[in-house]
């Protein structure tokens, strides 16, 4: 990966820090979040790598990552982070940037009727909040 000073200093890191109210730049990549993440096996990149992309101002790569969409916001990472960063909030900030740019993750019309019929209300409301 080739990095430029402009890219690293870009407004993207600030935007994510502002939206999440979490410090991304203090992360020293210990990987504890990834080690304890219950959804890591479904992510294309483990959570600590997503943080690294944000730190390095790699906006496109960070927003293209599947990982934020598999974050269930369970805060396991947050309760274990030695730097006190709540990664669930960073993941929400990344989702928010994509969603606010008009890129929903979930298409309600594509959900099979049998899924719609049996899922609990809580799953719908949470899914609508997190993925659309």
């Amino acid at each position, binding site marked *: 990966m080739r990095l430029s000073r402009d890219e690293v200093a870009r407004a993207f890191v600030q935007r994510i820090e*502002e*939206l*999440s*109210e979490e410090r991304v730049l203090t992360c020293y990549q210990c990987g504890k979040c990834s080690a304890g993440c*219950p*959804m890591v*096996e*479904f992510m294309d990149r483990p959570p600590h790598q997503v943080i690294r992309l944000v730190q390095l101002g790699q906006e496109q790569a960070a927003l293209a990552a599947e990982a934020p*969409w*598999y974050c*269930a*916001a*369970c*805060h*396991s990472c*947050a*309760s*274990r982070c030695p730097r006190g960063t*709540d990664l*669930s*909030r960073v993941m*929400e*900030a990344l989702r*928010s940037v994509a969603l606010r740019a008009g890129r929903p*993750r*979930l298409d309600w019309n594509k*959900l099979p009727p049998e*899924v719609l019929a*049996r*899922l*609990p*209300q*809580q*799953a*719908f*409301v*949470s*899914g609508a*909040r*997190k*993925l659309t």
Partner: protein
Amino acid sequence: MKLAYFPGCTVKAQAPQFEASALAVARVLGVELVEPANWQCCGAVYPLATDNLLPLASPYRTLMAAAKAGLDVTTLCSACHNVLKRTAHRLQTDAEVRAKLEAFTEEPWQPVRVRHLLEVIRDEFGWEALAGRAQRRLSLRLAPYYGCLLLRPAEVMAFDDPERPRVLHQLCAALGAEPVSSPYEAECCGAFLTLADARASLAAARNIIAAARGRGAQAIVTSCPLCHFNLDARQAELAADGQPLPVLYFTQVLAQALGLSDDCCQFDLHYADPAPRFAGESGGGNG
């Protein structure tokens, strides 16, 4: 003791056994639960982006309805508990957000206390007093399952140790059951991912169930209707893994121990039938 009781959407629509058993237990324990008129959905998840304030309006109104009636709030569902408690904490500690929500809802903020029913039972009665009320001791091995939203973030939930939670263990033990610990007891069930990628929550459910079953648990105990769906209803997809493992709401465990009628437990709504676990239980106990 009188509390405002917030049921939430899933408890009302898909987990009537959770509510019926909770109401029956509360009655026996002398806790009056008052359901506010016109309550609204809590939003199911607390908004984590700092500038996303609109989702706070609905829990704000719910909290203020209780505050106006001079009541603390209690709830059964882990998610409602998480949203209501975090909203109350945010409004109490963040003056800027408070001013915005007050302007938007046209209602002044009043401090209000939110507690999960488990917290109320632990803190208002205590385990010994609860044991004294039991009509029978449950000689069962029960695996407490905490999941994510009941405990975290711990500094706001202020409930139990998020890495080594004990409240459900203590509840089971007080009622004569043997709590079975598992490394997956505080790990997320995949929650709403059951909607977006069914594989992900099924994999989480498989780990949680296998860990409990492997340690000899006869049932899992939870406090969340979404966890219940992922662990119980979706066990149909895990039939090849072994005998179905029943998943109980903690209020059903209480109802059984307090000698309440099976009607309030509505075990017929479960995929894995818990009824045989309670059949032939000896009465008496220490109450």
